[in-house]
């Protein structure tokens, strides 16, 4: 009897405690936990597919940068001797490096809309493609220092695609062997981008980029996309058109030789914009069923506006590739139009997200 009373008493107290412990679980159930109409899996599949290809390119770039580094090392980093004695091997390595960069960069742009827009992945965008150097923008600089094979440390040198582009095309004097003139394609003329880069910078940056692409791959595999991620990516990335058009306006593709911009020299920014918009179209396709369920007209309007924006950029790009030299004022006007369209799209997506009670991350 005594033991029964004990047991009853202990059980009662434990129950009181546990009931209390459970009481405050009044947190509202997030909408995302409900069965979703959105096809988020397709977004992840697209992302992982592109990253797989990106990894192949970054490994290629690493490998050819390493080949160039070994040649320079064998010449004891005497670049004049290197170029004089091994012009064919050097040219081959550097042209391959440029090709690998030209393949890798659009592949990244094709996922930038997702990587930069998803809070859990956006750090990779800062490192790989977006952030400035500590010298240009101390507040928003990349979060890493680049240690070179010779032990030098480049403090917050800027995003890795940018470092590699400026090294390979010679637009940053610090990464360039200015004393050596290298006619890489052996056509008898020294054209833009025909330079010998500092092999330490090239190898250091290519190695680190390959490392970060691997990390991005791991993070992307672990990423469980949510409706909030998808809407955030759209609302964050769509309205960045003016930034891209601004860098296009100041690039060699518009300003020509007068341009002082060091990056975006190899591929027109207009091409990047189209790639980014392609990835956002994939994201939109994923969440479109949700918006159709809310308002079919709105869903159709957003899709048509997004397609329209991409077609608009394609049109400008075609003209540029066709040889049209835009004036600065035309570039400004074209940028303003792109921004207006993008702002309208982001606005409509925000309204849909609010109506669906889906949070847009800050």
């Amino acid at each position: 009897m005594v033991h029964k009373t004990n047991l009853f008493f202990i059980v009662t107290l434990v129950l009181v405690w546990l009931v209390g412990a459970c009481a405050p679980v009044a947190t509202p159930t997030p909408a995302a936990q409900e069965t979703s109409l959105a096809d988020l899996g397709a977004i992840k599949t697209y992302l992982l597919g592109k990253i797989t290809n990106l990894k192949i390119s970054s490994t290629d770039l690493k490998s050819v940068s390493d080949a160039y580094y070994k040649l320079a090392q064998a010449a004891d980093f005497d670049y004049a001797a290197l170029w004089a004695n091994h012009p064919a091997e050097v040219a081959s390595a550097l042209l391959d490096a440029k090709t690998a960069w030209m393949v890798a960069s659009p592949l990244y742009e094709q996922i930038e809309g997702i990587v930069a827009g998803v809070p859990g992945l956006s750090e990779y965008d800062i490192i790989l493609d977006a952030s400035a150097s500590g010298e240009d923008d101390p507040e928003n600089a990349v979060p890493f220092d680049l240690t070179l094979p010779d032990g030098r440390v480049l403090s917050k040198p800027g995003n890795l695609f940018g470092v590699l582009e400026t090294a390979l095309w010679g637009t940053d004097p610090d990464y360039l062997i200015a004393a050596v003139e290298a006619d890489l394609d052996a056509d008898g003329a020294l054209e833009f981008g025909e330079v010998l880069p500092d092999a330490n910078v090239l190898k250091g940056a290519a190695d680190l980029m390959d490392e970060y692409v691997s990390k991005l791959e791991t993070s992307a595999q672990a990423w469980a996309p949510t409706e909030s991620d998808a809407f955030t990516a759209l609302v964050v990335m769509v309205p960045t058109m003016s930034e891209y058009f601004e860098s296009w306006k100041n690039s060699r593709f518009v300003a020509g030789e007068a341009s002082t911009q060091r990056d975006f020299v190899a591929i027109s920014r207009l091409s990047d914009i189209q790639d980014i918009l392609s990835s956002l179209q994939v994201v939109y396709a994923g969440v479109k069923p949700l918006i159709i369920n809310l308002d079919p007209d709105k869903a159709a309007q957003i899709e048509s506006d997004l397609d329209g924006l991409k077609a608009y950029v394609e049109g400008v790009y075609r003209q540029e590739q066709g040889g049209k030299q835009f004036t600065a004022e035309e570039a400004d006007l074209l940028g303003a139009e792109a921004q207006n369209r993008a702002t309208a799209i982001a606005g409509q997506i925000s309204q849909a997200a609010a109506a669906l009670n889906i949070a847009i991350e800050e």
Partner: protein
Amino acid sequence: MRKLLKSLTLLTLILAAIHPNVRAEALPPAQVAETIRSSLFAAQMSLQSNDPNAEIELDHAEAAYRGSFQSMIAAVNPAADERIHEGFARMRAALAKTSPRKFAAARAQVWTAILNGGYSIVELSIHNNDVATAQDWLGVREFRTATRFSRPNADATLALQRLAAQSITTDDALQFLRADLFDTYQARLYEALRDLESADQNGFTIRRAELAALAAGYFDILAPAYAEQRGAQALDEVHRLFSDLQTATISEATIQPALDSVYAALENFRAAPLNPSEQSRRAGQLLRYLNLVPVEYERGVSNGQVTKQLEIQEAVTFHEAAQAAFDDLRDLLDAQNPQNTDQAAQLFETLGVQLADASTDTRVSAPEEVRETTTRLIALLETTMPDEWKKGSTAGDFDVIESMLDQMMTAVRNGEYDLAESARLEAYAVLESGPEARLSVLAPQSKIVIEDLFWNGQGENKGLAFLIQQHAHLSEIKASRTALEAELKNVEEILSVQSAPLAIVGNAGIIVFREGLEAVVILASLMGSMKAAESRKYRRPMWWGTGLALLATIITWLLARGILVSLARYGEKLEAVVSLIAIAVLLLITNWFFHKTYWTGWIASFQSKKKRLLAGEAGLILGLVSLGFTSVYREGLETVLFLQALVLESGTGLVLAGVAIGFLATVLVGIVTFKVQTRLPYMDMLIITGILIGGVLLVMVGKTIHVLQVVGWMPTTPITGMDMPYWVGMWFGTYPTWQGLLLQLAAAGFVIGSYYLAENMKMRRRANSVPTSLAQEGKATGQ
């Protein structure tokens, strides 16, 4: 008024006539508007390239305008329709003369007139409670230019949704609509003016003409608000200035004088009215910022001298922020009580002079003077403000926290880590004295994350207190601040939902019950165990301690409203100290419990040892008073801080009702524990009491270690890979850190060790006194 009603009825009839056809046949208005906009842009680009398609595109745009779209705009806003027609005519003329500049200006005129017409239709539809038409036409709008870091708001969309669900009134929906769209178009107006300056500097003549026309068009949408605030004459003058500006851009004249005049005419003009939740938010900011002014000032002044100029600067900043909030609310306050509002404006000025004088070292007012001015000002504002503003706005609190964290970042950038720490503490104090009560109930999992980020967390992003103390690099502090901000945003959203009265009562009750449970279990267990006549007297000192703690809690409650911010600043540290004392006392008592009550009750003859015991009697009584006091007050202090936020939100009545319920529940648990224990046989009762006290000790140790880690008085080593649900920490004091778990284990070891030590001593004692003890044993157990 009758005229207005007549017109509204007429328009309603027109809308009713057009409406079914519009919705059945035509494209959605937003799609029509976009077709016109993009066709006109294409026409301009063609014109600039001498492409003959320009005319085709213009025809396309004009054709899209005609039909039901045009009929609606013409019916509701004939002036806008007129401007659209005029714009098309001007574009045709510009096309004929191949003048891209004039074409661009006319294009902007048409587009902004369409926006104006769209706005009018939405407004009228809301008036007529025709939500479907309002929703259709709301798509004919622009948004604030979004960036990577700012998101377009959805206030108007949500207002229409709520109106459709009849959860807000027509008037509220109109207020939200105006606030959202006027704010958007005013932002676009300023953006157009800034871009105009830039285009002018770059010599972009076509862009200049377009941007000046855009600015004029945006202003047209805001014109009724301007006329309402400044009168028809002032409006005519601004229209003239915009016209001058447009003429200057078309004629390639210098634009700066006209632009300066436009800027001057727009100074202090705010088109968007504050919606009700924004009013509460601004009111919350106003009072919070004002409260912080004397706090900062007192820190910066000593013996009539400015000792810390930066603290004075902070006081100035808070004053300016409060002044800005006051300016936004001034018209509304004026409507409540013009006399008080004028007096408040004068006090603002006095306070501004006091701070400016100290800032320039002209005259250093005593801190008491600044406090007095501020107190009078706050009292005046509180008397004038409508009741709903005074309930406190969670959003306002988060704004203040954000601005404090901004100050912290600025201080870190300047290498002023002391100041950064001060700003961090202020931010935390606002959280602690504001939203934390609701946070601990509605989002307890976030509370732990936020505490870690504010203090000494050792996760992926380290705590700000830890980083500031280490003088960490800006980027590290920035990363933690960003993580904190994301978490704060998350909880702001959860807390933005207004609590129902029942929820407030429930929340208050749960807080009191949770905080009181430990104390009551300790007290009831110990007192229940003192049932033997000789030990009953020990109950009294515990009651004294309990009574004192309740008194201290009530005093804290009464004082808390006045000193809330400064108290909250030290809240965690105060809790840490009181908790440590409570543990020390509990350890002593546990030791005493096993070695005295247990052993003397069973074996020793109380009478024969009376002399020895009396020698330690005073210390024992003091210990019991302290136990009663610390057990209750450590919970009382936290409860008061939590409940204050609920009081600010919902008033004292509801909260006190919750307190009463929570208190009753805790007392009931106490009585049950007490009663059941007194009915148990002595030996069982002692075992149960021992288990309960041991359990409470474990929880207390765990929680205290957590608080010590939060305030940085104990290092934190997280257990990698171990994740616990938040309620395990909240109710059992167990957190996944090595220090916490090991010390809880040590506490368990202490309790069990004490028991076995007592058992061992009992056995030895029995062995030594078998002949005499048997009779006493029978007496003591009552068997």
